[in-house]
């Protein structure tokens, strides 16, 4: 049991690294929004959402039954988030990043041998998404941008709660959901 926990801990760390590289390694926007407009940060959120969409596709392939259905629902929610943030970038005169191929993302994801592995990866993914949107709240200058990130942060927290529930734990384990658990 001890060795399994250690392996799963490593899986989570690898997931965090993979997702960080998915979000941070994309090319800068080709459009020219003004400095300080928030476009750069919004573009990093779009890139992270693209990685999240691919990740939920991979997670769903490992899950079964109701858990697989929720993976599909959450993937669709991430697609809507990516589209909403990309629209904010376009309104600033920027060009949001395009998604890479699923194969490109897949080589960055951890191997998932069981539903437990998949839910562990899903938890790390949603923690990172919550953290990214809460960080963005502080850094984005425009009320409309903040409104979008606040609403999406709440969505991501819900998705994380579903992952907790699917893993057999309480849906809402903490009083302050920071994405750093």
């Amino acid at each position, binding site marked *: 049991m001890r060795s399994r926990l250690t392996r799963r801990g490593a899986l989570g760390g690898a997931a965090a690294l993979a997702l960080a590289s998915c979000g941070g390694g994309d090319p800068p926007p080709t459009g020219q929004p003004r400095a300080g407009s928030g476009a750069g940060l919004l573009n990093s959120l779009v890139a992270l959402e693209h990685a999240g969409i691919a990740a939920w596709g991979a997670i769903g392939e490992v899950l079964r039954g109701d858990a697989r259905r929720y993976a599909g629902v959450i993937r669709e929610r991430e697609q809507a988030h990516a589209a909403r943030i990309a629209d904010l970038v376009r309104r600033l005169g920027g060009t949001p990043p395009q998604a890479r191929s699923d194969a490109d993302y897949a080589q960055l994801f951890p191997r998932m041998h069981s539903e437990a592995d998949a839910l562990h990866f899903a938890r790390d993914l949603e923690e990172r998404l919550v953290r990214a949107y809460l*960080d963005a709240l502080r850094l984005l200058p425009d009320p409309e941008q903040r409104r979008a990130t606040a609403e999406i942060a*709440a969505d991501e927290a*819900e998705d994380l709660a*579903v992952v907790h529930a699917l893993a057999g734990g309480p849906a809402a384990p903490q009083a*302050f959901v920071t994405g750093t658990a």
Partner: protein
Amino acid sequence: MSTNRRQLLLGAAAASLAAASPAAAAEPSDADQLERLLGLERRLQAAYEAALARDAVDPELGALLLGHEREHVRGLEQALGRRRPRATAPPPKVGIDFASRPRFARSVLALERETVAAYQEVLTGFRNDRLLQPLGSIMACGAQHEVALRQVLGDDLL
């Protein structure tokens, strides 16, 4: 981030909030907005306390969610620069149905949803940048409470 660190952040932000609270414009001040959120959190706290007393919620779940609401109230009090909770009249329980566990879950779910929406509105125009993340982390907890209550009701979780 631990709860203690979160509480420290809320407390540290209170000083700058107090300095900024005399509103220059007609828009509500940050302090006004925090008072609004505090009122909603107190209603939730009172609802879970009453539900536990009346067996209108599963004891384990009720205690967990009540504990969160107490931490939210404490955090918001700290953000307002108060070292201890201000004595207030009991918040109204209008609209909360304690007749059965499902009926309580349904009615408190509506209050949780209203509270999350209030946080989203407040975060959009809040001026004190240092409080945005702590307030966002409370909002996120409220969103998770909604999922926990839908689970109790047997509803779709999302």
